[in-house]
């Protein structure tokens, strides 16, 4: 009994360590790349032995680090949120973008810009949360009926319908308000550009609570994977686990969307890639997906800055441009893993 468990634990540790290493390498490369390239060794030097008189160190710490830090936080949140959604809805297409959370957050942000004149991210975040939570709750309520928990198809259809209705309301406000449209179109495209440490510090607590809550749900999520009947037989409250996961998703996706705008595919892509390596064991899956989400977002952001330099591809666009083909490749290469 003992040795398989130990080998499973060491396998988990190895996977998580590999993902963490990938993230660290990506982040260091991402900080180094840009209009003024800085070699990785000097990036590490600036991070561990900061010298304010050194020009490269100033660039690393003051200009590029905040952006990458925010990218890591947002990417981790999206990776975790996407995985939780896929596990809970048993829907391989679940992603904050697909299940209405982004649409809800966007609508609330548009209301904040157009009618309340709020223009900075620390003001958006509360609206983004309320919008994300309301949309998620609505989709969940529609997905489940008369005491039944939502089936994957119902929840996916509900998410699509809610996204479309809220999207139409958002468009209506935007088309009638040029000034709001002009601010919103830059937020809506999803970007880490010009966000300072303040934004990262504003969203970090929410993401942290979301991460802790997700990790607390590992055993119930494993039980749900076996089917609700089996989960109930094992003494797990399927409903409780789903509600807990929904709260975590709202915290994670709401914070990520408030900070960086609606970014699709990071949650979807990292969940699928992680599942490819770990299977449905959530002890391995959740940390791997979280680290992969951060890695993918940093890669997308870095490629977006490098590929069309000196111009810049916004992160959300880059995520879709690079994440879309990855998703298509996954669909083509093998059957989407049964959840």
């Amino acid at each position, binding site marked *: 009994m003992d040795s398989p468990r130990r080998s499973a634990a060491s396998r988990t540790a190895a996977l998580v360590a590999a993902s963490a290493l990938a993230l660290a390498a990506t982040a260091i490369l991402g900080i180094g790349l840009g209009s003024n390239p800085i070699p990785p060794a000097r990036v590490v030097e600036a991070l561990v032995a900061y010298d304010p008189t050194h020009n490269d160190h100033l660039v690393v710490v003051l200009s590029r680090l905040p952006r990458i830090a925010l990218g890591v936080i947002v990417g981790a949140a999206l990776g975790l949120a996407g995985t939780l959604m896929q596990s809970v809805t048993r829907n391989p*297409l679940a992603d904050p973008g*697909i299940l209405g959370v982004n649409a809800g957050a966007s609508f609330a942000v548009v209301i904040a810009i157009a009618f309340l004149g709020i223009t900075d991210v620390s003001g958006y975040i509360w609206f983004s949360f309320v919008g994300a939570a309301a949309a998620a709750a609505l989709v969940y309520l*529609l*997905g489940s*009926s008369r005491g039944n928990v939502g*089936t994957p*198809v*119902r929840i*996916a*259809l*509900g998410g*699509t*319908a*809610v*996204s*479309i*209705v809220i*999207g*139409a*309301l958002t*468009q*209506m*406000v*935007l*088309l*009638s308000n*040029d000034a709001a*449209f*002009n601010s919103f*179109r*830059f937020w*809506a*495209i999803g970007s880490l550009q010009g966000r300072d440490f303040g934004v990262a510090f504003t969203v970090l607590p929410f993401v942290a609570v979301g991460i802790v809550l997700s990790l607390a749900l590992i055993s119930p999520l494993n039980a749900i994977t076996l089917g609700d009947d089996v989960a109930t037989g094992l003494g797990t409250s399927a409903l409780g686990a789903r509600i807990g996961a929904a709260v975590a998703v709202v915290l994670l996706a709401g914070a990520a969307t408030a900070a960086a705008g609606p970014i*699709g*595919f990071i949650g979807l892509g990292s969940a699928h890639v992680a599942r490819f390596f770990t299977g449905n064991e959530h002890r391995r899956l959740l940390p791997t997906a979280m680290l992969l989400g951060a890695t993918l977002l940093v890669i997308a952001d870095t490629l977006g800055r490098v590929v069309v330099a000196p111009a810049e*591809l*916004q992160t*959300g*666009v880059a*995520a*879709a*441009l690079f*994440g*879309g*083909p990855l*998703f*298509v490749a996954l*669909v*083509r290469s093998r059957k*989407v893993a049964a959840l």
Partner: protein
Amino acid sequence: MTVVSGRTLRVGDFSIRIRPRIVTVGLIAAAVLGAGIIASLMIGTIPLDAGDLVAVLSGEAKPSLTRSVLGRRLPRALTAAAVGALLGMSGAVFQSLSRNPLGSPDIIGFTSGAATGAVLQIVVFGGGMLATAAAAIIGGVITAFAVYFLARRDGVTGGLRLVLVGIGVGAVVSAFSSLLIARADINDAMVAQLWSAGSLLGRGWLHAAVAIAALALVAPLLLTLGRSLALMEMGDDAAHSVGVRVERIRFVALIVGVVAAAAAVAVAGPIAFIAFAAAHIARHLAPVPGVLVGLSAVVGAVLLTGADLLAQNLDVGMRTPVGLVTSLLGGLYLLWLLARRI
């Protein structure tokens, strides 16, 4: 329980089976469509009564009134009906091809492809109705080819794989479109954004002609393909065994369905939910086996005509292009379906 009764109408090689339920429902829908078009002619900033309408149609009204009704209201109403019919047919074909109610052209990315083609034209090369229309059709067809060939494996396009690949490709082309809108100057961006919402504002005879010509081109083809598609819904092997060349039919139906959807987008922008809802409603009105291409077309025309009447006369103090009206109503319809059943 559903007995497939009816007779076959044959003209040379071309034959369709006439089924009473579909004919009855189709005639009722066509009557509603006629009423909707007449209402579109009568309702507006200058309301007409029946006498005025007769006067206009017989050429005895004031020239200014005649110009307003025959030059603006009539082409707009006909455009709405033709675009709705194109979308309805396209929806029926794609839902059948993907064997999935979500497989309508707006959800599997073709509409995004067409819209992106048009946005590219508006933002980079400057608008122009025919140029924008051509760009939309090219964008839609390129996207469809990409989706089809990416979803094809071992010579077969699986239903769910088509939807999944469509969602992925659609996201990429939408991202490209948002990028273009964010990069453009604010005036071009606003035009492109308004266009991306789907609108029938200011559509004249040129638009009506393009939509009606497209309808005349694709309707016979899709009606003919309908029977093979119905056989394919029983499974590729079953269809193959009765002599349907499955992959070839699927490819032709895909191309013609895309041209129908792209022509609709070219004329009116990406109008959501008509394709989804028309095919769905048609199936509910006439619960018989088969692919209801013709009935979906009539239902689509009714839906878009009604939505455009609402869009023109709904005053909520905000711009409400018809694409947003259809999104709102269509989304609410889907929500109502979800809350009620399944």
